[in-house]
């Protein structure tokens, strides 16, 4: 169980913002922080890791106090058991992939965990390469493996998948889910992608201007529970055009572009950039094998 209650004045591009977060995270849950950039999501992770000092507040992790400003307790980042995957991965350029992982071991610790991680995250062939020679997805996997070497109480991933194309993205989601289960981790993930959130998380916290505005299971937060659909996809509207009394929506779903029609009452409330659920009920799909 992780209890977080933090307050901090942040200076953002839109001026000052008060970060004010109270939440409890169940052990073993995968929780996603969702919200616009600049809403304070990264700051929350950095405060939990001890890299950023809040003005006041407390953080308790599995009964241990990491931070309590009233009692002047503030563990250094070195003493907090967190695994962190940064947005820029922060792999050490002077070390090979294997050395990056070994660096994360404590002195005199057995390196069997490194070998195990190399195996399950499939880094075998990359072991002796330097980070600069890796692709984005490969760097991502190395950063993930390195974050797990210390068997953290919390794994935190700051938009780990945003820079990757959808195929690699899907594979990496699987890696993250696998290690989350295998190591019984409590995971905090920042993501913008609703389909990713729905697929991966137990709980979503929607953050706006430094505050939690909605929280709950993904289907509650994105409220599509009422639908008893046969087909259901989430996507982003790329373009809306009006033809007579119908709206034509161009929607990006994963990497595919789909066109659907919407009637006037639906179309009026939609604009390009909106995230939507597309579902169909009475429909007989034609399935063809293509590969």
């Amino acid at each position: 169980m992780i209890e977080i209650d933090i307050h901090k004045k942040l200076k953002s591009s839109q001026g000052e913002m008060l970060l004010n977060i109270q939440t409890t995270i169940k052990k073993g849950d995968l929780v996603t922080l969702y919200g616009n950039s600049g809403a304070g999501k990264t700051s929350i992770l950095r405060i939990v890791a001890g890299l950023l000092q809040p003005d006041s507040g407390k953080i308790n992790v599995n009964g241990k106090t990491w931070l309590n400003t009233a009692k002047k307790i503030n563990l250094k980042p070195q003493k907090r058991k967190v695994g962190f995957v940064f947005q820029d991965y922060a792999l050490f350029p002077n070390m090979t992939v294997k050395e990056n992982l070994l660096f994360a071991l404590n002195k005199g610790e057995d390196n069997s965990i490194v070998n195990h991680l190399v195996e399950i995250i499939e880094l075998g062939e990359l072991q002796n390469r330097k980070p600069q020679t890796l692709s984005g997805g490969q760097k991502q996997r190395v950063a993930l493996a390195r974050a797990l070497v210390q068997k953290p109480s919390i794994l935190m991933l700051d938009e780990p998948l945003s820079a990757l194309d959808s195929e690699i993205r899907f594979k990496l989601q699987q890696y993250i889910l696998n290690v989350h289960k295998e190591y019984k981790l409590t995971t905090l993930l920042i993501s913008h992608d609703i389909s990713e959130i729905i697929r991966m998380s137990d709980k979503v916290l929607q953050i706006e201007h430094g505050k939690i505005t909605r929280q709950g299971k993904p289907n509650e937060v994105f409220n599509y529970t009422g639908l008893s659909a046969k087909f259901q996809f989430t996507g982003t509207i790329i373009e809306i055009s009006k033809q007579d009394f119908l709206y034509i929506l161009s929607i990006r779903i994963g990497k595919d572009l789909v066109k659907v029609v919407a009637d006037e009452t639906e179309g009026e409330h939609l604009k390009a950039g909106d995230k939507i659920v597309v579902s169909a009920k009475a429909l007989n799909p034609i399935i063809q094998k293509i590969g």
Partner: protein
Amino acid sequence: MIDWEPLILTFKLAFITTILLLVISIPLAYWLAYSKSKLKPIFETFVSMPLVLPPTVIGFYLLVAFSPSNAFGDWLNNWLGLQLVFSFEGLLIASIIYSLPFMVHPIQAGFSNLPTSLIDMSYVLGKSKTTTLFKVLIPNIKTSLLTGIVLAFAHTIGEFGVVLMIGGNIPGKTKVASIAVYDKVESLDYAAANTYSLILFALTFVILLMVYVINGGYLKQQK
């Protein structure tokens, strides 16, 4: 044949100065790169002053400070047995001050250019500041270190004004090559002055060329 002693003395001075400067500059540059202290601009100014101050001014104040007729020079002389005026040790201290910015600036820039996420990550992985400095930061600023080393070495070779003020022209102790050139010209021995000058010219050219070749990545491309 010329007297080789001034050249040997020059390289001895440049070599020891560079090693001592490296030891001093890494912690100093680290502090300048990462400290949020309000005093930082003052220290940065002091480090940079030798770049713009006439060497004779530095030499003059060191001369006054080290002079045994003053309290500080007297204390050095009585308690440490150090006579810093017109001696090799005095020259060494003057060189360290004079070449300080040439070592500190590249190292400081090297630290500042590294993404801070590397430091954050090392801390998250449970590593101390010292381990982070030696295992993560220093190995990733090798070219900056090399630039600092070479520039400090070359700049010490090129020193003249400070040496003249504080070291004088004592053969084997303070008569370095740049002074020897001046000395030979004064005594109208142009041939010897030319030999010294040519050697210094060629050496500084090679040393600086080395920096540009290495930092320009020409070596990496060939690999």
